Every structure is written in structure tokens, then in C-alpha cells.
């Protein structure tokens, strides 16, 4: 199968060329590669958004990424090669199979991180209802809780005070905490929708209600979440706090 060399194809590949120039010849194991969880619903609507997020992470921070998003079955052994897993969807999805539930439980328990994202911006129905139902099966003793703006995820790289996505219907992120670590962060504002590009390289969706500034905030929030997955509560260390508090004043 041959790919026609068009202006669009070149533009799409440009970021990858930039990244490959920066990456050194070393194993990929320690690099950031977003995994994308496959489930029975519409799980693959934000693949390019995740690639874009990886690209932004590479461009703006010192993190080395593999600029692609890898779709992963929850029962796949390869799931444990990727500690960052995007679990998104548009609309309801059927219940996970028991082996999938158990694999996801192991994944989260042993250190994996899940960014859950309601692509439909739902609350109490659609993806939101399905996700909450499945999460209760995966981690029955650990409820989803609102994430206060004082949480370290709002300062892991950018200083932020809200978590908008393509939408801004729900002011707060939610999290499932395992010990002192947020193992799951959940946005109902379609975060990845703000990062998604179409085939032409343009952003795929309008961002509302804040427009392009809101998109930038969504990108920054995405980077902060990746930084949280990689550095945990590093920015809560005592050496950072005085300076960060001063900046926030």
C-alpha cells in the first residue's frame, strides 16, 4: 500500500521529523508513550489528540516521548509496557470483561496511571455513567473524588487553576487516590478533544466557551497531567513550595 506524497502528509509528518531529530539513540522503554485503552465503545476518537499531546510534551518540556499513541487491549501483556493509559470514549460502552477489570486493577495498583476523558462531555449518562460503573468494579473501595485546585497536578509544570477541555461543563477534575497517588484522573470536559487534529493538521473541534485561549489551557492541563504521571508529587516537595506560592500571589 503506497501513501501519496501530498502537502497534507508532509505537514502531518513534520512534528515527527522534529522529534526524531531530538531523540537520542537509546532504548524507548523509559520514554513517554501514551497508551489508549480499547473497550467496547467508541474509544479511538482522540488518537491524533494524544499524538499531539505527546508532541507538545516533547516541544515544551525536557520529557522524551515516542510520538505515537498505542492502542492497547486491557488484557494485553503490552499494557504493562506503558504506565500512562488514556481511557476515553464517546457515549456509553458495554461492561468490561472480568479479565479486563482484573488487569486494569493490577495496572493501577502496581503503579499505572489512567487519564479518563469523557469525549461526550457527559455527566451522569453516556460515557460518564459507563466509566463510573466500570471504575467501581475495578477499584471498589476507592471512590472518585473531586480534585481541589491546590492539588499538585495544577502546578506540575504550568501554574493552572482550572481544567477545561474542548468543553468546560464541569469545573473540577476527579481522581481515584491509591495511597498518596492519584492513580486515575478523570475529566468530563473532553480534554483530548481540544488537542485533536484532523487530517489537514488543523484542530478538529471548536473549543467552547473560551475559544483558543481555552485550548491552550487544555494543552497545558494535558502536559501537567503527563508531568504528574511522570513525576508524581515532585512539585509538592518542600524546595518548591515557597517559590510557587510566591508566584501564585
Amino acid at each position, binding site marked *: 500500500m503506497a501513501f501519496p506524497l501530498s502537502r497534507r502528509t508532509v505537514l502531518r509528518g513534520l512534528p515527527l521529523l522534529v522529534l526524531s531529530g*531530538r*531523540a*537520542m*539513540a*537509546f*532504548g*524507548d*522503554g*523509559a*520514554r*513517554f508513550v501514551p497508551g489508549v485503552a480499547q473497550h467496547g465503545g467508541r474509544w479511538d476518537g482522540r488518537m491524533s489528540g494524544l499524538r499531539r499531546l505527546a508532541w507538545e510534551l516533547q*516541544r*515544551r*518540556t*525536557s*520529557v*522524551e516521548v515516542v510520538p505515537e499513541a498505542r492502542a492497547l487491549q486491557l488484557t494485553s*501483556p503490552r*499494557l*504493562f*509496557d506503558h*504506565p500512562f493509559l488514556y481511557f476515553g470514549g464517546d457515549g456509553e460502552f458495554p461492561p468490561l470483561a472480568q479479565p479486563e477489570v*482484573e488487569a486494569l486493577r*493490577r495496572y493501577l495498583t*502496581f*503503579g*499505572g496511571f489512567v487519564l479518563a476523558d469523557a469525549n461526550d462531555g457527559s455527566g451522569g449518562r453516556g460515557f460518564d455513567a459507563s466509566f463510573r460503573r466500570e471504575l467501581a468494579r475495578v477499584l471498589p473501595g476507592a471512590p472518585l473524588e473531586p480534585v481541589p485546585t491546590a492539588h499538585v497536578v495544577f*502546578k*506540575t*509544570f*504550568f*501554574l493552572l487553576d482550572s481544567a477545561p477541555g474542548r468543553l468546560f461543563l464541569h469545573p473540577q477534575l476527579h481522581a481515584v487516590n491509591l*495511597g*498518596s*497517588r492519584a492513580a486515575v484522573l478523570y475529566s468530563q470536559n473532553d480534554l483530548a478533544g481540544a488537542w485533536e487534529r484532523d487530517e489537514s493538521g488543523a484542530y478538529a473541534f471548536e473549543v467552547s466557551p473560551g475559544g483558543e485561549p481555552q485550548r*491552550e489551557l487544555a494543552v497545558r492541563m494535558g502536559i501537567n497531567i503527563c*508531568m504528574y*504521571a*511522570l*513525576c*508524581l*508529587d*515532585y*512539585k509538592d*516537595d518542600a*524546595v*518548591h513550595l515557597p*517559590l*510557587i506560592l510566591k*508566584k501564585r500571589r
Partner: protein
Amino acid sequence: MNGPTTTTWRLVSLSPLPVWALGLLTALVVLGVVLAVLGLRREPSGLRRRVLLALRVLAGAMALFFLLEPGLRQLAQVRVKNRVAVLVDRSASMGFPVRPEGQTRAAAAAEALDRFAPGLEALHDRYQVEVLGFSPELAPASAETLRTTGTGNRTDLLAALRALKATDTGGSRKLAGAILLSDGADNADLQAGLQPRQAEELAGLGFPVSTVRVGEPALVDLAVEGVKVDDFAFVRNGVSVELELHARGLKGRDVPVVLQREGVTVGTRTVHLDSEDQRTPISFTFTPDQTGRFVYTVGAPVYPGEAVVENNTRSFVLKVIRDRVRVLLVVGRPSWDERFLRGLLKQDPNVDLVSFYILRTSADDTQTRNPERELSLIPFPMDEIFDTKLHTFDVVVFQNFGYAEPALSISSYERNLESYVAGGGALLVIGGDHAFGEGRAAYPILDRALPVDPSGLPAQVEPFRVRLTPDGLRHPVMRVQTTEPATQSSWDELPPVSGLNLVRVKQGATVLLAHPTLKLDGQPAPVLALWDHGRGRAMALMTDDSWTWAFTARRSGEQNRQYDRFWGNALRWLVRDPDLTSLQITADPPTVEPGHAVGAVVTARKPDYQPASAAEVRVDLYSLADRRVLQTRTAAAGPDGVARVSFDPVPPGAYKLRATARLEGRDLGEADDAVAVRSVGPELADASVRTELLADVARATGGRAYELPLGSLPAVPLLDPPLVEVGRSKDAPLWDRWGWLVALAVLLGAEWFLRRRFGYI
């Protein structure tokens, strides 16, 4: 031995009749008198009545006299000779001079006893005088012995008096009193003065103790006393040392007091002396920056004419331990390798983690207008962490760190870091695309501390399974299971890693993990290597994929804690956790009294950490002053791997013990410990004379307190010896004389005659 016998007389009844019979007969006599009184009631002549009554009473009395059979008893008595004990202090402090340049206190006491001799002789007719030395055990002392200075290392007045009391078994052993000659420099129960409970005990001795103070209070002496410090301290935490400077006869001087750690000054205090006898509390607070056992010495200068110069310094051993392992984690860029290592270190309560990540380099475009306000980044405080605060960390970890750009390059701190490791610090370098020369930065000076050299070859990117080397199998860092086969199996089952920095192993380094097939210079490419660098340790892990041992390895749900155990072991090895050293030595005790042997216990283990039975252990004792080995001992370790050695007494000072051991030709490493030999024991630490204490002792027992010089034995209070009867008594009857019988007959006859004449019969 008793006094001369004396004789006394006593009036006694010699009647063989029992008391009740005598009582009955006496009652009959009295009845006879009463009847006479009744019978004479109607007698009109008072004269007749009185005469008849007198005759009846006299006759009754005479009858009683015969009934009681009175006699004189002759008694022989003797006065028992009780004991008077003269107790002479034989402790070492009696070797101090009475006054500057004067005779010793012991000689002064001996002279005083010579002068007391006539007085003591005079007591001999009533008392038995014993001269005893105490130090604090009691022992008979001859005049000749008393002229020499005693060697007792303790003055315990109460113990001496208790021991004396124990000899008071009554009779001729009863004590009538004691005379105590001492400087009163008690360093036992009465060190803090006579307390009410002790005064009560002294009062219960039952005999007066008179004290004679030997020595004059006015002397010149400077003493470091009462050093109070804990046996151990935490590294990088403040430690307080409290002591008392006791200065006598040095009024007006400014005295510097210095605290040193094995020759290095830790602190100085200056004390101004306002009086001739001044006790000044002094406190030093310092922060030890290294773990281990160290000899600390507090010292004051020696002034002319001091009674004791040895008490101007006091040494003690302080064991400095770590409360938590303080780890500095410097990360070149966030990665999963960093993420899992951080998670492990943060959850370990024994680790105090300080971390710095490079989240952004100059090549990164954050897309911010005002980075200062929009980013949470802080400047990388290189000066602070690699210079001023570097020594506060137990372990420095560089994880995929090696930037060439000036803002992030550590090239100007390489020398600091290398010195930090050589001086006892620990360095761990974890690989990646910025490490081991893989990035653009090269740190040739820091590389000296590492067990590997960059090869200059490009990194190996093909996934591979690490192979545990034979050295690795035995090494405690790699022991993730309880047995070697299980440990081997655990490492074999790990998921593959991708990415390997190709390095060359230095001479003397130990490779614990290697590439299974890839060779470099004919040797398997090392994955994990370590060594000792100077007094410190360094470890190099040439991959950034060890996180997979924590996460990927658990994909099947096994409760595999191999990653945690490996890094836990690595940290413990880096900070020289005693449990992970093959050879340990402990001074026993860490502080030795002057003149005592120096002991040490050595524990040797094989590389597999089993007891090194029969290991040849060698221990050198060397002085910290000149680093010269003074004595060497060798011993064979027992079945438990333990060997004990003892060194001949050495002069006061600070010493180190260094142990080495070999087993079957293999070196088991070396270990050292500190030991302090005191310049003076507690007995010689204080040359003062305790006048008040001696007076209190005398007062509590009912004795009197005296002070030398005394021309003769003073009139000390003594209990009177008791008298006891000795031999048989002799009775002389008084009643069996014929005259008494005639008198009774005349009285009875006269009454009969007069009664008949007066018409009563």
C-alpha cells in the same frame, strides 16, 4: 581483750523457801501484829500499850529476818574492751598534695597517725584500736603502708562505713567509734553531698564517726568535670555536650575550653574566672556530618602549680548514626525510570528524599509569554546542592543526567562531587541518553569516582535480559530472595530492558549484572557495577529501564517486590549499612579507664554473608595523634565469625582500631572503630577536699569533725564499753548468828512476861 577485774557486794535472800511460802509466812507475821493491836485496844495505859506493841512488832520483824535468811553476795566484774576503728583513705586522690608543692595527703595522714599514737595508746585500757585502710574495701594497714599513696580508683565513704558496720558483731567486736582520715573526695554515693536518706543510714550505724580532714582546700587546679553527652547522635542533627569547668586558685584568668574531634576543633568557649573556687557549666552544640564512632576531647590549658594536670582534658566516644538516609536525586529528565524510583524512595520512611528534575532545557519552547508567572519551575540551585549542602546528603543519585549547556552543566562541581565520594559519600549514577558520555556532557573528574569509564561507543538499544554475574549472586545488593537459587531465578525471570550505556569496567570494580551476549573488550558488557572510592562508595547502573522490574514484571499479578528489595539493598550498601558489611569491629568498651586493657570484638562474614568461621583476623591499634600503629593482635574467628582481642594498656588519648580479615586467602575487607583512653578516672578527676561532707558525716553519726594539722589525738566521742560479770559469785549468810536467835527469844519472852504482869494471860 577485756579490762581488769573488779569486785562488788550485793545483799540477797538465801532462803530456800519459795516466794509464795515466804509471802504466806510474812502474812502470818503481819496477822500476829494486827491481832496484838486489836488485843490492846482497851488498855487504858498508853505506855503499856506502846511497849507491848513495840515488842510484838520487833518480834515479828525478827521472825521475818529468820524467814528471809539474808546474806551478802560477792560479785567479780570486768569492763569489755570495745573497738575503735581508725579508717584511713587509701584512694588515689590521697596522692594529691596537701597544698601546692606540699607533701601528699597520704603522707600527711600517716604523720597525723604518728602524732595520734600516744592518744590511741591511752585508749588501750578501755578500747581495742584498729587501723584500717579503705579504697573502699577495708583492709588492715600498717604504718609503713600508710606512708605510700593508695591506688584505689574510687572514694566511697559510705561503703567503707557500711563495711565497718558489718564487722560490728557485738561483744568484743562492738564498735565504740571510728576516726576517719580522708580528703572527703567521695565520687560514689556521697558525690552530691549527704542526702537525708544517707544521713539516716549513717545515724543507724550505732557508733560515732569522727572525721579528720586531710588536705587543704586552697589549691590550684583546673578540672573538666561532669561531661554529659548521649552515647550516640544522629548525623546532621545537633548534639549537645555539657560539662563543668571546676577552677580553683585561678581567679581573674580567662580560660579557653576547646572541644575537638580527633584533632579537629569543633568548638571553643572562654570562661572568665571571678572567684578562687568556681564551677562553670559549659555547653557545646555541634552538628556531626559523618556517621561512625569518633573520639571527642574537651580540653583546657594547664596552668603552673596545678595539683592535677591530667584532669584538664576529658575524652569520650560518640557514635554518630543516621536517622534517615538523606538522598539527593538529580534527574536529567522525567521518565518512567525516574517515576518508579521516586515512588519507591518517597514511600520509604527511612529515606529523606530531596530531588531536582530538569523539566525544561533552553531548547524547549514552553509557549508562554510570561514564563515566570505561568510556569511552576524554579532555578536549579546548583551552588546550594553541589557545594554548600552537598555534605548533608548520604547518597547522591544522578539519573540520566549530563547536560552540556552552561545553565545545567555540573562541570564546575565535579571536583566537589568527587571529593564528596572520596570523603565518605555515596554516588549512584543511572544510565540513559544523557549519562555515561551518551549525551554531550563529559565529566572526567566525576568519572574518577565511578566504577566504570564511558566507552565512547553508541548505546545498545536492543532489548535484552540482564544476567546476574557470579559476583552478583553472592553480593548483598542483589539478594532479592533468601537463597541463592531463588535469587538467581528472580533475576532470570525479569522482563527485558532496552537501552544500555556501553562502558568499560575499571580495575577493582565489581560487576553484578551484565549483558548476556554483548561483549566489550572481551568481557560481557556491564549493566551494574560498583566499588569503593576512597572512603565512599559508588554504583553505576547503565540502563534507564529498571522501572520495568517494578511494573512490567508484575503484569501477571505476582506480588513481586524484587525492584523494591534491589534498590533497598543498593541504598543500604551505598551508605555502608553495618548489616551489609562483611567485617565489623567494635571497641569493648568504647571508653577505657586509665591502666585498663583495650578490648575489641570483630565480626567477620563471608561474601555470602555467612559467618566467616576460622577467618584470620588482624587488628591494629593506632594512635590518632601520630597515626602510628602501637600494637597488633591476630586471632581466629570462632564458628559465629566473632573474634575477640585485647591490647595492653596504652597511655591516655584517642585511638583507632582497624580490623582486617582473610579467609582461605580471600580478603574480607576492613573496618575500624574509635576508642578513648581516659586521662584520669573519676578518682583523679577532682582534686578538691570536701570539708563540708566530712563535717556532715560526723554530725550525722554523733561524731566530731577535725582538720589537720592536729598535734595529738583529739577527744573524739566514743561509746562507753559495757561491764559484764565474770567468774562465780560467793554468798556470806547474815542470819545464822546465835545473837539473832537470843534477841528473838528475849523479845518473845519479854512480851510474855509483861502480858502476864499486866493481866493479859
